[in-house]
């Protein structure tokens, strides 16, 4: 479910700082809206993640977690890279849905450049933690689990 390189190390203070109430920036890159509304669903009364201080923020500069949905189309790619450069490091990327994880049903589309993990590793050449949350759409429980696993991986990088 999750994958991580272990090159970049996180200082103990950084890891501690990100471990509580991570702020989330949401980025849609060619989606069908469903992962996006399930992500918003996590914040509404049934799941209510705001209890734990997790909230959506309006700027990538405030974010700890980047939620990426969709199959990454060609027009979105430069914007995605620009947003990633603005997020304070260390951060984790959560690729939501079948499209984010492996392009899903749009695998053969002419307008996709690949799943999020491939873009981060091969185009951006970064070893940021990328958590793939499969499902079409993933249930809110799965999204929450994905973020928790990502944060745990980040803790493990602490040395």
């Amino acid at each position, binding site marked *: 479910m999750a994958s991580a390189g272990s090159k970049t190390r996180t200082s103990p203070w950084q890891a501690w700082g990100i471990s509580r109430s991570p702020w989330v920036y*949401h980025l849609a890159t060619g989606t*069908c809206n469903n992962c*996006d*509304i399930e992500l918003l669903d996590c914040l*509404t009364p049934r799941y209510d993640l705001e209890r734990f201080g997790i909230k*959506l923020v309006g700027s990538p500069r405030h974010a700890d977690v980047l939620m990426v949905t969709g199959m990454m189309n060609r027009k979105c790619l430069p*914007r995605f890279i620009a947003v990633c450069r603005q997020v304070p490091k260390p951060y984790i990327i959560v690729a939501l849905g079948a499209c984010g994880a492996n392009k899903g049903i*749009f695998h053969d*589309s002419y*307008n996709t450049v690949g799943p999020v993990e491939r873009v981060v590793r091969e185009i951006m050449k970064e070893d940021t933690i990328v958590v793939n949350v499969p499902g079409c759409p993933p249930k809110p429980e799965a999204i929450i689990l994905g973020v928790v696993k990502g944060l745990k991986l980040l803790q493990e990088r602490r040395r």
Partner: protein
Amino acid sequence: MPSKIPIGPYHPLQEEPEHFILTIEGEQVVDVDVSIGYNHRGIEKLAESKTYDQVPFLVERICGICSMSHPLAFSLAVENCAGIEVPPRANYIRTILDEIRRLHSHLLWAGLAGHFLGYNTVWMWAWKYREPLLELSELLTGNRNHYGMIKVGGVRRDIPPEHYPLIRKALDELKPKLEMLYGAVLDDPVLRARLEGVGHLSREDAIRYGVLGPTARASGVDIDIRRDYPYGASDKVEWRVITSERGDLLARVEVRLLECFESIKLIEGCLEQMEPGPISADVPRKIPPGEGIGQVEAPRGECFHYVVANGTDKPERLKIRAPTYMNLPSFRATCLGETLSDVAIILAGIDPCYCCTERLVRIKDGRGERRLSFEDLLKLSWEKTARLRKEAKDGCVE
């Protein structure tokens, strides 16, 4: 001196990537431009490489919010093309699921509209009331959002009779909550001040721009595919089309919330009339050559699919027109002259769904495959000048 304000492509206001360029003078919006393409996935082209069994799954993923309308429209188009008769029970199940989807979509929109207005309470309420509907969908179909229930010739899963009371109970519980939400939104003086008279779309403009669905009905245009070109069981159950003459944002909220009650009526009527029977017709693997259309009233308006079959098991061409494609240009009628602070809710007022809209057409030169390079354009320009010069000379002679 007018200044330009970009909204998007990634903006906290929007779930979807979308780029608006507003030109403002002081507080007033004088021009609005939109740039799309951030959601284009090439679905029409992909559909040509999938069989008739697979395409409903693909078109379901055009949009996650009206994910019942697209496969239904596609199936109707193929059934129209091949002359397939759908069993009555399948029709009832189709209408029930379509209306559950509409209820969920309208509640979702009401919540987001409250969020855009700074009323997060409305957002939380509406989404809380929407949650039992998603659970109901999970019970009936196995998934909260994408159902995979529609196939060409019928539906994939039956609704067993022991689920009827569960559906009725969920709807009965929803009704008082909807009434409360309706009263709370319409009685609130602040919400009324923000919505009344804002983003006005006159009946003439609505017809001129060809807007569809609740946006058109809120401007007094009485159209609804469920009544005009019935599909599923929408002509067998009693319900009415909600319209309003005012054409402002309040009317759009009102129309959408009142439509929820009609959807409940439709589902209850279907449950009463439904009789046991087959849920799917036999469909040949290869559809004979021909063309067919399917129209469905999606939560945002008419969803139109056009299929060309060529005798194989894959469609030759699939053309999709989603409702937002028609509703989007009406921004020029509703936004201009309004203040910048009202733009957010006006843009949200048509319930835009950009995922549905993003189709791409490559326009070739009308005379064939030729592409025009800069030299070609230069030549054309020179030719035109020469022609004009000649005409001017001829004119002088006369």
